Every structure is written in structure tokens, then in C-alpha cells.
């Protein structure tokens, strides 16, 4: 029978492949004996710590399984887990990634006291009333009417932008930067780009200057990947 845990050398270091068809109990025993073997083989006068990548194939380890593996490693002083990777992911995770890479169309009235959260980019066609809040993980393209609070890069991504007419908004926020528009009304026009500049301060530009403001984004328009 093939071993449930196999050592493999890669360009980046050592990888342990856990057989995704093997029983978990077998994997633990096999992993322990593999590490035992390695310890005796690598024994020298100048022992060096080794960090392993663990690849689990088509099996997704639960938190409990992971801590079991960490426990086995903790018995070996010089060995540690660098990361545990897998070829599969949960539906939840895949939906999250999908969400993040989709441009969502939001067409509704966000009323006083309502908070709308969206992951990914948003084309906003609706109305944000005074006191309404739109929090978006990605960029926002505003075609609607904004009288409330609008935030791109929620909660803390500063490389996102708001493009469009937000001159009636109460606040614009990008990541952790914000501006109360009462104080700065003159800077913002009907087709502004709101972004965080290299000094980490909210700044305003014209849509025509998008290429200078964020060349990477400019080249990617249409299929923006969120960080």
C-alpha cells in the first residue's frame, strides 16, 4: 500500500503530500512515521529547522484536522508547518471570490438609516437618501443620486475609487480615509474621480485624468480584480 503521507522536494523547499483518498487516521500515523524517519536521517551536528508546505489534494481539512497535524509537528522540534494548501475550496469561499470579482448593479433607494453592504464593484443606479449608507468592497461607479454616505474599499482598501457624481453626498469614504463634503464642496464636480493619493489623503480628479490617477485600473476597466 502507498504511504498516506509522502515527502516531495520542490523549488521552494519541502512539500508533504497527504493522500486525499486515505483514511485520516492513516494519514496521521503515516505523517508521524515520516517525520520520525526524517529526524533520524537529518540528524547532524548542526541541525537546521525545516518548514514544510502541506498539500491535501482534493481533501479540505477542517480546523480540527489542521490542529491535529500541528500537534504532530509540535512533537518535532525542528519541523514546522509553513502552510496547508488544497486543490479544492468551499462553496462559500468560491462565492466570496465570485462576488468580489463581479460588477454588481445596485438599483434601489437606500433610505435614512439603511446600510447596504456589497462585495465587489458596484454600478450604482439608485438613490442614497440623506442618512443612507452604501458600503462597497470594491470600486463604485455612480450613475444615480447620492445624498448620503458612500464608501468604496470597505473596510480598509485604499486602492479603490468612486467615479461619478457624488457632489451632493454627506460623506465620501475610501478605505479608512473620509471627507465630510460640507468642508470641501468646491473641489468636487459632477464627474469626479475620488481616490486616495500617494500621501494617503482623499483626493479628487477628473474622469479624463483616470489614466494618470490610476494607470493599472485604467487598463483593467471592465474586469477589475479586487485585492
Amino acid at each position, binding site marked *: 500500500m502507498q504511504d498516506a503521507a509522502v515527502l516531495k522536494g520542490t523549488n521552494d523547499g519541502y512539500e508533504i503530500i497527504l493522500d486525499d483518498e486515505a483514511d485520516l487516521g492513516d494519514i496521521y500515523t503515516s505523517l508521524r512515521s515520516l517525520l520520525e524517519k526524517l529526524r533520524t536521517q537529518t540528524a547532524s551536528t548542526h541541525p537546521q529547522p525545516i518548514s514544510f508546505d502541506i498539500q491535501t489534494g482534493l481533501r479540505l481539512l477542517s480546523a480540527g484536522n489542521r490542529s491535529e497535524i500541528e500537534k504532530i509537528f509540535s512533537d518535532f522540534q525542528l519541523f514546522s508547518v509553513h502552510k496547508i494548501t488544497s486543490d479544492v475550496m468551499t462553496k462559500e469561499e468560491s462565492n466570496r471570490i465570485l462576488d468580489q470579482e463581479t460588477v454588481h448593479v445596485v438599483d434601489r433607494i437606500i433610505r*435614512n*438609516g439603511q446600510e447596504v453592504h456589497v462585495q465587489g464593484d458596484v454600478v450604482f443606479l439608485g438613490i442614497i437618501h440623506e442618512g443612507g449608507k452604501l458600503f462597497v468592497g470594491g470600486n463604485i461607479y455612480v450613475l444615480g443620486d447620492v445624498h448620503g454616505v458612500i464608501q468604496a474599499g470597505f473596510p480598509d482598501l485604499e486602492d479603490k475609487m468612486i467615479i461619478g457624481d457624488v457632489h451632493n453626498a454627506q460623506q465620501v469614504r475610501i478605505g479608512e480615509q473620509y471627507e*465630510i463634503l460640507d468642508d470641501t464642496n468646491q473641489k468636487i464636480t459632477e464627474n469626479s474621480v475620488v481616490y486616495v493619493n500617494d500621501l494617503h489623503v482623499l483626493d479628487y480628479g477628473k474622469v479624463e485624468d483616470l489614466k494618470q490617477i490610476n494607470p493599472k485600473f485604467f487598463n483593467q476597466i471592465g474586469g477589475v480584480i479586487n485585492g
Partner: protein
Amino acid sequence: MGKAYVITSGKGGVGKTTSSANIGTALAMLGKKVCLMDLDIGLRNLDVVLGLDNRIMYDIVDVASGRASLGQALVKDKRFDDLLYLLPAAQNTDKTALTQDQVVQIVNEIKPDFDYVLIDCPAGIEQGFMNAIAGADSAIIVTTPEISAVRDADRVVGLLEQHPLQEEPHLIINRIRTHMMKDGSVMDVDEITHHLGVELLGIVFDDDAVITTSNQGEPVVLQADNPAGQGYRDIARRLEGESVPLMQMTDEVHPSFWKKIGNWFKKG
């Protein structure tokens, strides 16, 4: 150490929020350091009346739950150099989001740095009301000359007797229409004061400017010659311990029909 007043009424729409904003502003105009606390969680308005709605970053529930510090949540009114602050209410939770202990804790944290803490109480006598009175040293009860408002004020006075504060409550009679009070179609000031058995702090005349100024986010006390503003300024001075005579109900407040016509000829 400042003193905390809760501004309450029982009935909705009698002018609690307007009174809070105006008394707070009037006290700031007297050079006092004032913190206005909006406890109308879910339906906050005090920020709008003060014109500070677009400056809100955090609210009282954020402070209570430790998501923000008090300093982060307090909104400064730029018109009054470092004198007037607002602690906004939360909007997307309800009145059960706060406990009495949390309110007391927040008020105690505010009090050392301010001369006055004015707590804007929500309408009703449920948990929101209990939260609001929990942190207060004294109450200002707002009523209008309407029977229904006086009834609710009476109920609130009763509740305050059950949960006594450090000081006796005060009374403000708001939205007084001179001609109706004069012709006896509503209860007059003495009747209301006597009926409720609460010390009268002041009266405020009904005035269109209260609504227009509230819409502009600039409390009516800022208008020097407005009778309603005068009423609130007098209230602030009385809170400061001055003895100010009650405003007289003269026809000057609402010029009569004949006087208006007379004025046209004067202008001509």
C-alpha cells in the same frame, strides 16, 4: 463637573429635540461647554436640527459597545469654538441596544469635561425613556398647551416621582399661540404649571422660524430678534441661575390683522 439634564415629554412632537438643540446652543452662546446626547435610537433627529448630520462617523451604540471611543464619536459644532458637541444616536439598531448602565457610564465619562450634558429623550415611556433618565441629574419636561401633551407630561412627572433624580424636574411650555391662550381656547401657562406641580423653567412662543431654522440646521436661538429664540435664551439664563422675568404675551409676537393693515400704510 457638569450637570446632566434629560429633556423629556412623554408625548411625541412637542419639541423635545428642538428644545434640546436650542437650549444647548443658547448655553454655548453664554460661553458654557455643552454636550448634547441623542438617545432617540433608531430615529435620530438632533443631528439634523443642529446641521451636523453629515459629520457623524460613530454613534452612541459604537461607544457603548467599545467600537469607538467617546472622543471619536463626539461631533463638534464648528460655529461654537469648542463649546458645543453632539453625541449622535445610532440609526440601525433599536432602543434595546443600550442598557441603563451603559448610558450612566457614558454620561459619567462626559460630565467632567462639560458644564452641561443635555440628554434628548425619545418619545414614550419604555426602555428608551428609562435609559435617558438613568444618566440624568435633573429633568426638563417639555409640553405644549394641548391637553394630550399635558396628560402625557403628567404621566412623566409621575414616573419621575417613582424614579426620583437628584433635583426636582423643570417645565417648559412650548409652542404657545398667544391668541389661543388669550381667548381661553387652550390651558394657560399658570393652569398648566399649577396642574403639573412642576417648577416653570420657561415658555416658548410658537413661531414659523422654528421650523425654517430647523430645516436649515441653524437653531432659532441664533436669530437675535426672534421671540421663540428669546424664550430659549431666557431658559438658558435661568439654568445658569439668573432670574429672568417671563416673556409677556403681547400682540407684538403675532401682529393682529388690523395692525398688519396699518403697517402697509406706514410703509407707503
